[in-house]
């Protein structure tokens, strides 16, 4: 591992890459603070820039800097405005905003910054320990297992989608997979499902799709419902950033626990920062004693530290399946995967042996990035928070413009913009009907890989017998089926019971 760290250090600590870390963190923090623009949209907008760099190490460093910068920036708007920029920081506003209202905005920001820093750093250490181990196991996998593993990943994403959402999430996953089959497949050069349209020959562009699925609906919602972008930041009132030693002692164990828990939640496909932060908050509230528990929701420092540590650790954790298996567990890592594929890097177990500098540079850049964010957030925050006062009449046209630019400069084709608007409208309608969109994008990006591995397994075993002949494949597929069926079965029983009660009444 020491050797790896050295490789990483030598690759990450170049003036250019350091600049990329700082640049990524600053951009991420700035945009993540704006209500309505989540990390997925920001990363999607930054992809053309990253691909333009040409160097996969620098690109991944930039994009992961943007990622945790966005999560970090989201906490600032949660605390100051009660308007979380990112779903992962909603739990931060429960206690952060009451603290700000009590005039402790500075203290709240400091605690958030320290908790995020600790969560991110502990997450990076765990990533360094677990990723190599996991990827050496993953090297034993064959295409049959890969296929099964991806099916597990996709069904886990659906299974974690929440009560009553499993079917919808699964539907979106399948839609994504279907969209992934449009264009010329890797299997043969036969164009599929293009219906003779030239523009579809190479399939849909994933940047366009990512923009249409996330950035555009969010912007539309900002337009439709102005309450979503609460205005009027009291940017001038942030004073007294210090915390006392007593407070540090109170939050230290919380941060430790939640960093660990958050990391492991982040590793699970489909879970991620949002679930980690809510769960972290709930757990800390339940184990707090007496008066401390009553404080939760009224400005408890524990209640602020818990989700902040957890969501940053979870972000780091979500890199584990991406870097070791090449399977993204969340929408954000799916976009990162798409960017890597565009840069000719295939994440997966071979990444560590084939391109160790990419892998280790990312991990080292996480440490540096967390440090940069700590430095950035503490003294500069009163100034950075000024961006929250940008009026929406300026903000929204620019968001829309960046969305279009992102998909245009990838293809240099204005048909792409029409596809963007079309899918954007569809995505907005889907959001209205409560359909989750991340599974669609993950399905779309994994589709090609899923089919490739499936095809290879089929060719090796001359048919479907790979499912029965390889116990591990069978086991994984059974697991995938259980993941989808169990929640629906439990719901069905709960419904029956509820109906029974109603009838007896």
């Amino acid at each position, binding site marked *: 591992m020491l050797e790896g760290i050295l490789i990483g250090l030598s690759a990450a600590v170049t003036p250019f890459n350091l600049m990329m870390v700082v640049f990524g963190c600053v951009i991420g923090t700035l945009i993540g603070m704006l209500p309505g623009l989540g990390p997925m949209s920001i990363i999607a907008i930054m992809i053309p*820039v990253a691909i*333009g760099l040409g160097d996969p190490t620098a690109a991944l460093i930039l994009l992961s800097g943007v990622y945790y910068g966005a999560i970090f920036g989201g906490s600032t708007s949660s605390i100051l405005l009660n308007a979380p920029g990112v779903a992962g920081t909603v739990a931060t506003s429960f206690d952060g905003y009451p603290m700000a209202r009590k005039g402790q905005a500075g203290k709240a920001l400091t605690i958030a910054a320290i908790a995020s820093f600790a969560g991110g750093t502990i997450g990076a250490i765990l990533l360094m320990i677990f990723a190599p181990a996991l990827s050496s196991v993953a090297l034993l996998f064959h295409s049959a297992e890969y296929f099964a593993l991806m099916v597990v990943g996709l069904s886990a994403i659906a299974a974690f989608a929440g009560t009553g959402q499993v079917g919808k999430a699964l539907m979106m996953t399948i839609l994504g997979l*279907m969209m992934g089959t449009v264009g010329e497949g890797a299997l043969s050069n036969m164009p*599929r499902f293009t219906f003779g349209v030239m523009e579809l020959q190479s399939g849909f562009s994933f940047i366009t799709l990512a923009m249409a699925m996330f950035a555009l609906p969010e912007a539309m919602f900002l337009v439709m419902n102005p*309450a979503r972008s609460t205005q009027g930041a009291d940017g001038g009132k942030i004073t007294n950033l210090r915390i006392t030693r007593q407070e540090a002692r109170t939050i230290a164990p919380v941060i430790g626990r939640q960093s660990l828990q958050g990391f492991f939640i982040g590793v699970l496909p489909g879970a991620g920062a949002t679930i980690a932060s*809510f769960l972290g908050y*709930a757990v800390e509230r339940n184990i707090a004693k007496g008066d401390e528990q009553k404080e939760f929701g009224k400005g408890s420092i524990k209640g602020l530290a818990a989700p902040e540590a957890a969501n940053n650790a979870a972000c780091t954790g979500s890199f584990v399946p991406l870097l070791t298996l090449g399977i993204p567990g969340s929408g954000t890592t799916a976009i990162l995967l798409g960017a890597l594929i565009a840069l000719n890097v295939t994440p997966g177990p071979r990444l560590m042996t084939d391109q160790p500098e990419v892998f280790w540079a990312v991990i080292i850049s996480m440490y540096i990035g967390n440090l940069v964010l700590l430095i950035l957030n503490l003294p500069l925050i009163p100034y950075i928070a000024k961006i929250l006062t940008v009026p929406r009449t300026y903000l929204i046209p620019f968001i829309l413009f960046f969305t279009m630019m992102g998909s245009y*400069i990838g293809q240099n084709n204005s048909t792409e913009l029409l596809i963007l608007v079309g899918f954007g409208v569809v995505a907005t309608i889907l959001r209205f009907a409560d359909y989750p969109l991340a599974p669609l994008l993950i399905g779309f990006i994994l589709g090609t890989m899923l089919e490739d591995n499936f095809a290879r397994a089929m*060719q090796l075993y001359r048919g479907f017998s790979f499912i029965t002949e390889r116990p591990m494949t069978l086991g994984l597929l059974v697991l995938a089926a259980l993941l989808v069926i169990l929640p629906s079965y439990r719901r069905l029983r709960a419904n029956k019971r509820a109906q029974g009660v109603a009838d007896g009444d």
Partner: protein
Amino acid sequence: MALDRWIALIFVALCFVYGYAAFFTMDQLLPPILQRNPIWPSTFPKILAICGVIVGLVVLFGSKPPKVDAAAKARGLDPLEADEAPDDAVIDLKRLGDYNVWQAVALLVAMVAYALLLRPLGFLLATVAFLVAGGALLGERKFHIMILVAVIATGVIWYLVQEVLGIFLSPLPRFM
């Protein structure tokens, strides 16, 4: 029927079209040598179409759970906020009438116009026009500031994309 079931119905129909294309139109085009392969380009789509129809029907006819949105979940964790008014920031179809739908539609039209005019007008002119029009649609009336900001931003972005990223964006109208 609620919107989500309509979408499920459309999805099932889409799966039928997709499945029809996979089952009946693709295999004839396959050269004989590839037909001896255990997997055809249509194999995976066929599986997808079947799964899609099943899942779509489950969503279409499945029982509907009580609606639990993210904010309610959050409030469930936090009983102190439970008695507060419903969160304004949550998107809810029932309140569609209260939303500025026409502004959103107008912006979408502006985006389509931008897509169509980008080449004929050139990047600089089209972008400035889009930004100013977008601001105006949202109610900005201080045009002198808006235009100044739009011009500066467009110039900076064009320079960055052209010089730093090295991607050519035709800056001027087609006739120039």
